[in-house]
C-alpha cells in the first residue's frame, strides 16, 4: 500500500480559500475545537488502520551549507521571504490509493476555524518513495 504525507504549512501554497488571523487571535472555544479536531484525526486514522506517524515542526528555520575546507558551516536563519513555504507538520498515512489520500486530506482541511466554520486550509499531499523491493 502506498504511503503519503499530508503536509500542513505555516505559510506558502496556493492563495488561501478562506484567509484567517493567526490561531492565538481566535476565540478560545474555536481554538479548543481546532485542537480537538487534530487529535480526532490521529485517532480516526489509527482506528482505520491508516495511521503511520504524526509530527509537528517548530516555525524556527536555519538554512545550513558546507562552508568549504577548514571552514565552519555557513548558516542563515533569516530573513526569509514571507512567501516561502514553511512546513508546520504532517500526518504520514498508509492507504489503498491516491484517491483515499486526497479524500483524507480534504477531511483534514475541513478542520474548524474561526466561528467553528471549516478552515479550507490547503493540504500538500506527497507520496513517499520506496527502496528497491516493494513487492511486499
Amino acid at each position, binding site marked *: 500500500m502506498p504511503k503519503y504525507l499530508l503536509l500542513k504549512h505555516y505559510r506558502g501554497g496556493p492563495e488561501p480559500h478562506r484567509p484567517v488571523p493567526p490561531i*492565538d487571535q481566535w476565540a478560545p472555544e474555536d481554538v479548543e475545537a481546532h485542537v480537538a479536531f487534530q487529535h480526532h484525526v490521529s485517532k480516526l486514522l489509527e482506528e482505520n488502520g491508516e495511521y503511520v506517524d504524526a509530527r509537528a515542526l517548530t516555525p524556527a528555520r536555519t538554512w545550513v551549507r558546507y562552508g568549504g575546507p577548514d571552514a565552519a558551516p555557513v548558516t542563515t536563519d533569516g530573513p526569509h521571504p514571507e512567501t516561502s513555504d514553511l512546513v508546520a507538520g504532517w500526518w504520514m498515512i498508509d492507504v489503498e490509493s491516491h484517491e483515499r489520500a486526497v479524500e483524507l486530506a480534504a477531511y483534514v482541511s475541513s478542520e474548524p476555524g474561526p466561528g467553528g466554520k471549516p478552515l479550507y486550509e490547503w493540504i500538500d499531499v506527497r507520496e513517499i518513495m520506496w527502496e528497491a523491493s516493494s513487492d511486499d
Partner: protein
Amino acid sequence: MRALVPRVLAGLVRRGEDFDAAEDALQEALLEALRVWPDHPPRDPRAWLQTVATRRLVDARRSEAARQRREEATEAEPRAGGPTSEEGDDTLFLLFCCCHPDLAPASQVALTLRAVGGLTTREIADAFYVPEATMAQRISRAKRALAGPPARRLDQPGDLAVVLRVLYLIYTTAHIGPHTGPPAQDLAAEAIRLARQLTLATEEPEARGLLALMLLNHARLPARLDSEGRIVTLDRQDRGLWDTREIAEGVRVLQSALAMQTEDRRPGRYQVEAAIAALHDDAASAEETDWPQILAWYDDLVALTDDPVRQDPAAVLGRAVAVGHVLGAAAGLRETDRLRDVLGERHKWHAVRGHLHELSGDLPAAATAYADAAGRATNIAERDHLVRQAARARAGSHGATTIRGR
C-alpha cells in the same frame, strides 16, 4: 525479576567479568527465565540468574577463545542467596559504572535504564522515540567504552553528582518527552525506583533531595493533564487529585536530608528544589501558596551557581515568578527585563512574561507574550496550552474593553 538485575550484574562485574559481556549474558539469562520460570519456578531466582548468566559467559568465552584455553574455573557454584546488605552497594556500584563521566548523557541514561533498570532495548527506544537499532547501537557503544577492568576511576567525588543528574534526566524526560503516552510515565516511575534504591546505598543528602523532588512533583501528575490531555497549570489544578501519600513520603525524605545540613554543608540544588515543590504541595489552594518562603528558596537556588542566568535559566525564571507574587507583577517583570538579553529567545521567558502580565491585569500584553511563547515552544501539548492562554487573555481583554466602553 527486574529488581534482581542490578544485583546479579554487579555480582558478575565485581567478580572481574567484562561489563559488556556480563550485561549481554544477563540479558540472555533473563530471556531464558521468561521461558523456563512459568513451568519451573526456581527456588532462588537470583542464584538461578547468576548461574545461567555465568554459563552464557563461559560459552561465549569458549567459542570465541578456545585458543586461549582460558580457565573455566569461573563456572563456580552460585553462592546461595547473597546477603541483602550488599544490595545497596551493588546498585551504587552499577550506577557509577553506567553514569561514567566519560559517557555522553544520552548513553548514561540508556545504559542506566538497561543495566540498572532492567528495561529492554525496545522499551528504552520507544521511550526516547528512536528506532530500536539506533538505541541498540548507542548502548553497545557505551558498553564498549566501559570495557576493561571496572571501577578504575569510579567512586570519585563528583561521580555521585553525575548519577543524580542522570536519574533526574530520566525523570524529566518522562514529563517533557515528545509524547506523553504510557512509556514516558513508566520512565518517571523507574527514575523514582532507582532514586529510592540510591538512597538506600548512600547517606548523601542530595540523593534524598532528588528522591524527594521527584516524589513531590510526581504527586501532582494526576492533576497535570485533563481528560482531553490538555495541560492544567498549577493554580488551576484539582488539588484533590494530588497523591497525598507521595507528598507525605517526599516531605519525610526531604526533612531527613535537610536535617543533615551543617554550617559548611548547605542544602544542594535538589533539596532546594524539593523544598519549593513541597511548599506548592502544601498549599490547600493556589491563593494560600507561601510565596515569600518560595522566593527565599529561589534566592538560595540562584546562589548555588556562579552565573545562574546562563547555568540555571529555569531557576532565575522561576524566581522572577516568585518575585511577581511577593513584590508585585511589575517587580517580576523588571526581573525578566534583566534576563531578556540572554533568555529572550526562549519560550519559557515569554511564558513567564505572559503570566506576570496577566497577574498585573494587562491582558493584551499577556496575550502577545503567550503567543510569542507558543511560537517558540518545542512541545506540542505546551504549544497548544500557550495558544489557549493567548486566546483566553485576548478574549478577556476584549471583554474588559467592552465593559469599560459601557
